[in-house]
C-alpha cells in the first residue's frame, strides 16, 4: 500500500485501542503503534517509535500523536529517518480514523489532507 498509519501515544492502551478502532475501517492497511515508555509506563519512547516506523509496510507514513513529548519524539524520528513521514496536528482518534478510511481505498494524499484540515486542534 502507498500509505501506512503510525499511532504515537503516551499510553500503550490508547495506542492499541486506536489501532483496533481504525482497523475496522481499514483492514488492509499497515497500522503500527508506539505507546508508552520502554518499560510500559506513561510517556513516550523514541525507540518504540523507531520500531513502529521500521515495522510499517506503507511506502509513506501518516503519523498521528496525542501529547507534547509524543510530538517531539515523533519530530526527532522524522529528522533521523529517510522514510517519508507526514505528521498531522489533528485530533488523534478522529484524524487517524478519517485518514485510515481514505488510505484504505487508496485516496490521494491531497484528499486525505483536505479531510484532516478541519480536525486540526494543535
Amino acid at each position, binding site marked *: 500500500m502507498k500509505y501506512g498509519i503510525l499511532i504515537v501515544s503516551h499510553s500503550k492502551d490508547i495506542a492499541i485501542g486506536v489501532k483496533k478502532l481504525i482497523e475496522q475501517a481499514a483492514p488492509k492497511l499497515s497500522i503500527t503503534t508506539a505507546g508508552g515508555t520502554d518499560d510500559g509506563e506513561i510517556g*513516550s519512547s523514541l525507540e518504540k517509535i523507531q520500531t513502529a516506523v521500521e515495522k510499517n509496510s506503507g511506502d509513506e507514513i501518516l503519523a498521528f500523536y496525542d*501529547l507534547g*513529548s509524543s510530538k517531539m519524539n515523533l519530530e526527532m524520528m522524522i529528522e533521523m529517518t529517510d522514510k517519508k513521514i507526514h505528521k498531522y496536528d489533528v485530533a488523534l482518534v478522529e484524524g487517524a480514523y478519517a485518514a485510515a478510511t481514505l488510505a484504505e481505498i487508496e485516496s490521494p494524499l491531497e484528499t486525505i489532507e483536505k479531510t484532516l484540515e478541519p480536525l486540526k486542534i494543535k
Partner: protein
Amino acid sequence: MELSLADTKKWIELFVQKVESEKSQLNELDTAIGDGDHGTNMDRGMKAITDAFSKKEPEDIVSLHKTVAFALIQKVGGASGPLYGTAFLDMSKKAKDDADLTTLIQTGLAGLKRRGQSDVGMKTMIDVWEPVANALKADEFNQSVIDEALTSNKALVATKGRASYLEEKSKGHLDPGAQSSAYLFEALLTVLGA
C-alpha cells in the same frame, strides 16, 4: 573558550549528582503545574548517562555530548527527554567544527526552541538557557544570572507545555524544567570555578 574533555565530563557528572539529590524537589515543582514526574524522569536519564559513561568512556567532546543526548532521549520518557536530548545532540554536531562553550550553549538553546516550538517568556527551560547563553557571550556568566532567570520564570504565566492549561494559576510557580536547567548551569559554574 573551550572546555576540556575532562571538564565537560565533570560538568555533566555534577549535573547528574545535583538532579539525583534534588529529584523530589523537581517532582514537587512539577506536581504544582504539571504531571509530577520531572524529577523521576530526569533521574532515570541521569542513571542512563552514568551507565553510558561507565560502559564507554567518551573519547572526545563530540561523543560525550552525543552520549548524553542518547541517554536522555531514550530514557527520560517525558517532554524533557526530546528537549534536553535535542539540545545535546545539536551541541554534539556543532562541536565537530566549533567546540567553543558559548557557541555550544547557543546551539543547544536554538535546538530547544526548534524542538519545543517555543521562545523565551513562555515559562519553560528556555527562560534559563537564553540568559545564560547571553551572559556567556558577554563574559558575565555568574550565579546571579541563574538566580534572576529563575525569579523571572516564576513570575510568568505559562503559554507553552502542560502548565499553559493552568493559565493565570501557573503564575508564582517555578517551571520544573527551568529548575533542572538551573542545576545544569550551576554545575557549569562550578567547573568554570566562578
